[in-house]
């Protein structure tokens, strides 16, 4: 990745954090409600059979509705979702190559189960990524970790998660500096494997040092492993309505093939 591209994706990353400081009704909801809803969403999406495609599509209504209601920048969220596509394709590709049994006939051309399962994997990855990114954008990562702890995740694990997120940003910044330093003196030459290895090692050491300094700075300001975000933490009727409403919809979409109903209803109306 070139330096400007690294920079762009890094700034995007920080923008996600900034979005969480918004003032919409969704932002104000207790983080636990949003975390639980997202977990139920991901479980529902992931529990479909491997050749499922159409029943997944209605699930997109969740991230789209949240993006609309919270006033999130759709393009930014989309760019983040796209980042998971290569990984999903990589996981799905072996299915397409090895599972060659035709499952579907489209205009006389047989589509193998492998291609359908790959499409299913990609859709599920996009849905899970969309829901998670939207969750971070309306909640903020520290509040998510706090919510996870309060709904039963062991504290050391929740703290680890928070630091993982912080240090990812630190790693990105250090990588950006090293990429710039390389670019300035490389005269356009690509990086050799040997140099690449040396840079990665150096990057880890630098990140380690920097992460330690940040941790010291957090301790110096009284950090003891508790998450205090200043956001309200009242689980009231709005939260209950949010969780019940969305989870009810997810379960309905999971249990019933709504796309099939809609298709049948549309065809019935046309006749």
């Amino acid at each position: 990745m070139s330096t400007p591209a690294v920079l762009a994706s890094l700034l995007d990353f920080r923008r996600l954090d900034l979005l969480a400081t918004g003032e919409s009704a969704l932002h104000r909801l207790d983080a636990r409600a949003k975390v639980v809803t997202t977990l139920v969403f991901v479980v529902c999406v992931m529990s479909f059979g491997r050749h499922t495609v159409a029943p997944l599509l209605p699930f997109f209504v969740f991230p789209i509705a949240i993006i609309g209601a919270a006033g999130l920048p759709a393009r930014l969220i989309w760019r983040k979702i796209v980042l998971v596509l290569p990984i999903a394709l990589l996981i799905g590709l072996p299915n397409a190559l090895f599972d060659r049994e035709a499952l579907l006939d489209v205009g006389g051309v047989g589509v193998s189960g492998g291609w359908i399962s790959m499409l299913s994997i990609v859709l599920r990855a996009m849905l899970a990524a969309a829901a998670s990114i939207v969750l971070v954008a309306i909640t903020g990562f520290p509040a998510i970790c706090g919510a996870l702890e309060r709904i039963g995740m062991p504290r050391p694990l929740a703290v680890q998660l928070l630091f993982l997120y912080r240090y990812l940003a630190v790693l990105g910044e250090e990588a950006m500096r090293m990429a710039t330093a390389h670019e300035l003196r490389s005269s356009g030459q690509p990086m050799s494997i040997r140099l690449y290895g040396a840079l990665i090692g150096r990057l880890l050491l630098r990140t380690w040092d920097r992460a330690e300094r940040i941790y010291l700075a957090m301790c110096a300001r009284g950090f003891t492993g508790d998450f205090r975000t200043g956001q309200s933490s009242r689980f009231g009727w709005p939260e209950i309505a949010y969780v019940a409403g969305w989870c009810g919809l997810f379960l309905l979409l999971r249990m019933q093939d709504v796309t099939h109903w809609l298709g049948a209803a549309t065809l019935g109306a046309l006749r």
Partner: protein
Amino acid sequence: MSHHLVEARGLTHVYEDDTVALRDVSFRITHGESVAIIGANGAGKSTLLMHLNGHLTPSSGEVRIGETPLTKETLPAIRRTVGLVFQDPDDQLFMPTVYDDVAFGPRNQGLPEAEVDRRVREALECVGVWTVRAKPPYRLSGGEKKRVAIAGVLAMAPDILVMDEPTSGLDPRARRHLIGLLAEFSHTRIFTSHDLDMVLELCPRTIVLFEGAVMADGPTREIFTDDALLARCELERPLTMQAAPAGGHGRN
């Protein structure tokens, strides 16, 4: 009993690789004093600061803050008393917005949100950057970052301010503003710095470290005119005193 006292008694620190960073360091800094700790690179300044906030444990000797020895049990209370401002504000500013970053300390103290808000506002207004409260820290200039980092510590209402290289990396104007700001504080202040001109302006007392040991502890002007001492500790007079004859006083 005053919380504003800082005392080191026979403080020695040996790192795991057997490097002796501090050798039998002793001093006592009293209420409202402004003291500089100076020394060449590797003299032990940063190690000493890390001890004042309990980030390092002495190999021998002790640190006392307000007559309380620094131990694992007293650490949380001492960290409330001693505010440490890091050299690189990027290490200190990690929350998504300036406001949240300054609120990080007060929230960790478990203060109610209304009090947190009051502290954040006061701290940001004190250093003159209330207007940037909604900005992400990485969008700020170097001078603003430094001010926000100081506000983050002020918001915890410490009795003692410890600052590592406060003016490093600042342009002349931002440096001048910062020195003006630091001069107004009534806290007990401890600075480490290579900016000896700043030291001359802000600190009536200076402690000189060399290879981990205290080589001098006294009035700043006397130390800066002792050329033999400065040479032995691999230091030079501040720029504003370099043109002055030995024993004379430079422009202030």
